[in-house]
């Protein structure tokens, strides 16, 4: 039973939270640890408990700071020792319309309302600025839900004296703040309340009895929403949507009914729903989600179905198509191999409960939502937050093209016999430079999602990256690689910290899509030359093993480092003297 897949099981999450937490902690030991400060304008205890469950589910082990009851403003404004020492990685501000201390009255003039609006906004903006300056970490702020009653009835939303109008205007300015502050995120409580049902959500009993701003039963969905933002910030979004075809992307069975017989397109209601769903899936591609097919079908039938004139999705939209009579768990692994991506970043959609069960049972970590009725498909995918957008980098937008270009490179490699000749034929050009502001977002993203070629798996926020960039004591390099098939974007990152005469490599990673091209050697060449400029004598490398980074266990040895220590957990330390380092040969033209 998966409590966390939408529709989430609120009642069990509340009632069995102690057992569920115990299970989550015992199931895995691969958590990343994060410190979350929850600053509340109302009671936050259950919110923290539920947030903990959702974050553990996402592989994030939180420790919490909770402000004393309703002390969010004081904590942020004046600070306190406990919070300062806590050094949060993320701050979540849980406030609601009852924290707005003054509303316009029926006798307020338009000017008075405008002044009050400005004042109310500043009351909040001042703490966001203060927190950002002090802690330099992502801030998540609830927007304001609608009040439970409307004094002016329908006019409450249009009249400046109506609370609903006032709150809606306040939200608009809040969104503008979020637009210009990159590490500031809005938790859309207003939407959550609408989905849940405002009357039940805002049941005043919970405010007057326990000072909760929402009903207890809705807290898991609030916590999920906050957890979705946090896991997205730390690169734990799902990356691939793997689709069954028959009765998933169209109605009917293409092998039996023929292309003309499947339900897709405007003629029948069911066909319209499938078209709308395909359109939604196509739009997922536009936010960087990779699409793949895993279907029991003859390949030609599958392709014919995907070429249906009324279907928005076409074969080209998919980076991998497995239409055959293999078992779906085998196909799923084959897709993961094709794409060189962890299978635990996959979502699988299939109308057939037996096929879903096979994937669940195989325990790959694939998310398998219940797709029971076609009219629910979009909602199930959408509300699950698998692909929560916190940043929409240009890299996300071109990811599909990059994976397709990769497929072409594989073809070329097969046609050129010798690997060195193949590398030369790629006409690679790399830019290797110190961190630049426009790449900070991408660099942070890479530190959070690279698992395989990642020596230390140090996970960083954008603020962390900025601090390294600005520090005198760091040498930071990014590597960007282009070739004749396209631009791979920023794909490698090194950050080294200078201590005395040595450079300690805190971070070295590379995207697996550019493995074995020589970029790692080019990066080391650049690093050595920068270290020499700073007069350093040695580079010290660290390898911290994880279940996924085995491929770089001997990386430093391959690069000419000498092992100086190894502990019982397999953590190793390596040394490279700069005096006798000779630059390596690669097929890449370097721009610095």
């Amino acid at each position, binding site marked *: 039973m998966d409590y966390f897949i939408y529709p989430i099981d609120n*009642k069990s999450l*509340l*009632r*069995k939270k*102690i057992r569920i937490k115990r299970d989550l902690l015992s199931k895995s030991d691969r958590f990343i640890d994060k410190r979350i400060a929850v600053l509340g304008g109302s009671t936050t205890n*259950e919110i923290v408990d539920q947030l903990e469950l959702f974050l553990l589910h996402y592989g994030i082990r939180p420790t919490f700071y909770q402000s004393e009851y309703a002390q969010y403003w004081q904590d942020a404004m004046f600070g306190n020792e406990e919070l300062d020492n806590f050094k949060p990685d993320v701050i979540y501000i849980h406030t609601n319309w009852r924290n707005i201390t003054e509303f316009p009255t029926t006798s307020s003039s338009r000017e008075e309302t405008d002044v009050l609006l400005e004042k109310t906004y500043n009351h909040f903006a001042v703490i966001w600025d203060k927190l950002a300056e002090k802690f330099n970490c992502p801030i998540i702020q609830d927007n304001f839900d609608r009040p439970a009653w409307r004094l002016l009835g329908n006019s409450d939303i249009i009249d400046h004296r109506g609370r609903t109008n006032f709150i809606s205007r306040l939200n608009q300015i809040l969104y503008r703040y979020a637009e210009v502050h990159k590490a500031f995120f809005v938790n859309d409580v207003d939407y959550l309340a609408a989905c849940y049902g405002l009357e039940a959500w805002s049941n005043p009993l919970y405010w*007057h*009895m326990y000072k909760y701003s929402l009903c*207890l*039963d809705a807290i898991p969905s609030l916590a999920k929403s906050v957890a979705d933002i946090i896991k997205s910030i730390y690169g734990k979004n799902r990356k691939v949507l793997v689709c069954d075809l028959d009765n998933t992307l169209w109605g009917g069975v293409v092998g039996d009914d023929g292309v003309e017989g499947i339900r897709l397109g405007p003629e029948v209601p069911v066909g319209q729903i499938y078209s709308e769903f395909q359109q939604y899936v196509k739009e997922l591609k536009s936010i960087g989600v990779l699409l793949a097919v895993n279907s029991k079908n003859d390949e030609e039938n599958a392709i014919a179905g995907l070429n249906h004139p009324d279907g928005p999705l076409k074969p080209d939209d998919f980076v991998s198509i497995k239409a055959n009579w293999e078992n779906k768990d085998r196909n799923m692994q084959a897709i993961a191999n094709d794409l060189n991506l962890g299978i635990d970043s996959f979502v699988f959609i299939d109308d057939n409960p037996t096929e879903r069960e096979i994937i669940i049972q195989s325990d790959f970590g694939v998310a398998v939502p219940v797709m029971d009725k076609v009219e629910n498909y979009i909602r199930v995918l959408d509300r699950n937050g698998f692909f929560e957008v916190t940043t929409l980098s240009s890299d996300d937008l071109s990811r599909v093209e990059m994976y397709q270009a990769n497929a072409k490179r594989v073809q070329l490699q097969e046609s050129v016999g010798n690997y060195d000749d193949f590398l030369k034929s790629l006409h690679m050009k790399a830019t290797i430079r110190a961190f630049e502001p426009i790449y900070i977002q991408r660099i942070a993203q890479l530190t959070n999602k690279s698992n395989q070629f990642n020596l230390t798996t140090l996970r960083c926020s954008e603020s962390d990256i900025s601090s390294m960039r600005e520090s005198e004591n760091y040498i930071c390099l990014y590597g960007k690689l282009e070739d004749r098939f396209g631009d791979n974007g920023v794909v490698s990152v090194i950050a080294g910290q200078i201590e005395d005469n040595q450079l300690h490599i805190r971070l070295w990673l590379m995207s697996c899509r550019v493995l074995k091209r020589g970029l790692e050697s080019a990066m080391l060449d650049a690093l050595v030359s920068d270290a020499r400029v700073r007069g350093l004598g040695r580079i010290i490398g660290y390898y911290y093993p994880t279940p996924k980074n085995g491929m770089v266990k001997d990386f430093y040895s391959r690069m000419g480092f000498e092992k100086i220590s190894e502990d019982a957990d397999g953590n190793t330390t390596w040394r490279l003297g700069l005096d006798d380092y000779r630059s390596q040969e690669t097929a890449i033209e370097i721009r610095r």
Partner: protein
Amino acid sequence: MERKEIFKRLDEVFQDVFGDDSVTVNDKTTASDIEGWDSLRHITLLTAIEDEFEISFSLEQSFSFKNVGNIVDAIIALKN
């Protein structure tokens, strides 16, 4: 609904809420008898009981329970 049946279902609710399979309750059980039964857990507990028996306690009731016996009385009253 029989008191005996209510207690059987209450035991399960308490075991879930306190994450402890050894918890059982009777008429005399109070918050001080069960580790972790503080005011915050009390909210979770009452909500779970409401869900289990498909009832809802009034505001006054929620604050008036002195022991589990009182809760059972309230469940019986609401169920009839």
